[in-house]
């Protein structure tokens, strides 16, 4: 599903955010991308969203080299790659329902589809009772669930999560990751960047560890690791 081939990303100032990364992630996998701050996790995710271009090497999604995707086609890529961030990125003046329906409106989906999909996905994340609430009336965990609903409502084959539990208290974090696990169970590939040790250790998924932009460990059913 996802292939990195000798990917290096150098930012201005000779910063090697990713350094010769080669990696395969299969369909329906759930991967924890771990490593300390600055190890290159966000850069990894940005390359998959084509927000950044690799300095060298290739990134493939479903056998398409992202370098071959024309700029005007990037929106269609983003519809296939859902994304969740630490800061939720919700629109404060829109309700929970509107924040999610927005993602469908924006891609020009007909009203009938929107009216079926949105309540469905909000039920999946357990927020059916808060459709009309505004983001600032919700807890961090609830906001992140809205954000996940929005990312998933398009049924993307891939869901990326960049430190989704970074702003959430530990008990809610578990709920969030369980939600990602359920989404993964529907056939969606999930990659979650995190440096939350307890979470990683609890879920026993594949763990890819980055350090200074290099993969230093790739382990099925792994734990966070002890070297840190």
């Amino acid at each position, binding site marked *: 599903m996802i292939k990195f081939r000798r990917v290096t990303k150098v930012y201005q100032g000779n910063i090697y955010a990713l350094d010769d990364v080669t990696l395969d992630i299969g369909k329906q996998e759930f991967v924890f991308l771990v490593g300390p701050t600055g190890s290159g996790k966000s850069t990894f995710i940005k390359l998959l*969203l084509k927000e950044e271009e690799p300095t060298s090497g290739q990134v493939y999604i479903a056998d398409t080299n992202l370098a071959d995707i024309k*700029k*005007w086609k990037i*929106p*269609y*890529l*983003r*519809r296939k790659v859902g*994304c969740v961030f630490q800061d939720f*990125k919700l*629109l404060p003046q829109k309700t929970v329902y509107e924040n999610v329906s*927005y*993602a469908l*409106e*924006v*891609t*020009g989906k*007909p*009203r009938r589809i*929107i009216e079926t999909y949105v309540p469905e996905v909000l039920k999946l994340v357990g927020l059916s009772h808060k459709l009309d609430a505004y983001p600032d009336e919700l807890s961090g965990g609830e906001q992140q669930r809205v954000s996940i609903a*929005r*990312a998933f409502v*398009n049924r993307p084959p891939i869901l990326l999560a960049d430190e989704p539990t970074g702003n959430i208290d530990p008990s809610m974090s578990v709920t969030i990751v369980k939600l990602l696990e359920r989404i993964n169970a529907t056939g969606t590939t999930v990659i979650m960047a995190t440096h939350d040790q307890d979470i990683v250790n609890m879920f026993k998924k594949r763990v890819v560890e980055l350090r200074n932009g290099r993969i230093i460990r790739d382990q099925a059913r792994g734990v966070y690791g002890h070297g840190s």
Partner: protein
Amino acid sequence: MAVNFMYFLKESTSSMRRNMALTFAAIMVTGLSLIILGAVSMLVHAGNGLATHVKQRVDEIRVFLKDDITVEERQSLESFIRRMPEVRSVTYISKEEALNEFKKMYKDQAEMLKEIEGNPLPAEFKIRMKDPKFNRTVASRLAEREEISVDPNTGRKEIKFPEDVVNKVLRWTSAIQRIGLVVVIAFGVVAVALVSITIRMAIYSRRKEIGIMKLVGATNWFIRWPFMMEGVFEGFIGAVLGIIVSLLLYSGLITRLEAAADNANLVSGGYLALLSLVLVLIGIFIGSAGSALALRRYIEV
């Protein structure tokens, strides 16, 4: 489609409400440029119409007399004119009458009247033809007569045709046209710039939202549409202002001018419709050009 249109409409109007003052300024300047365009076009059109109308209708020529002719010479000329079959009537205006008429006409300009020494105005005959087509024939016969004064500039007899007035009107309309065009273009450029600024503000105040739209896979055109519509809407309202003022000008001035010119139809309904259409198209052009300018810079493809 229906859902999309409502979406765009909602986005455009709410954004305009947020930048009320700027939007107002952009609409006003767009409106002003289209008002000037509408007014100038209509005046020029009416002026040209008036000129042709006068050309076709006016059957009067004026001949100016030398100051030093005797009464007999004058009377001989008058009877010479009266004997022509093409002539309907002859009116004599003496030097004194000419001066009085001149003073009456310029009674507001006392300064200018004070400058006049003695009576520089010549006596004249106003000769009306049975048909305007005789103007030239009669004039050519009069060119032989000694009693008529000679224009020192051209060396020809001083005989004034209605065309002379017409040409003066035409010179005025073409001057108005040229100056008007320059002013309209200048205002048009300012209008495009102002629309562009309002759209830029709108983009700026929604940059977070735009980021999220890109994130969830909105195409650039989808993101641009509401801004585009906002600009077009501003241009359209400006055009409506231009049309309203043009129509007011029509009913307030042109209709009176038409009444004064024997109810000639100087500006037709068809012309008004065409003018309105052109104003709307130009308004929309100004709006979309302003938006496009802002969008090209701030939402890159």
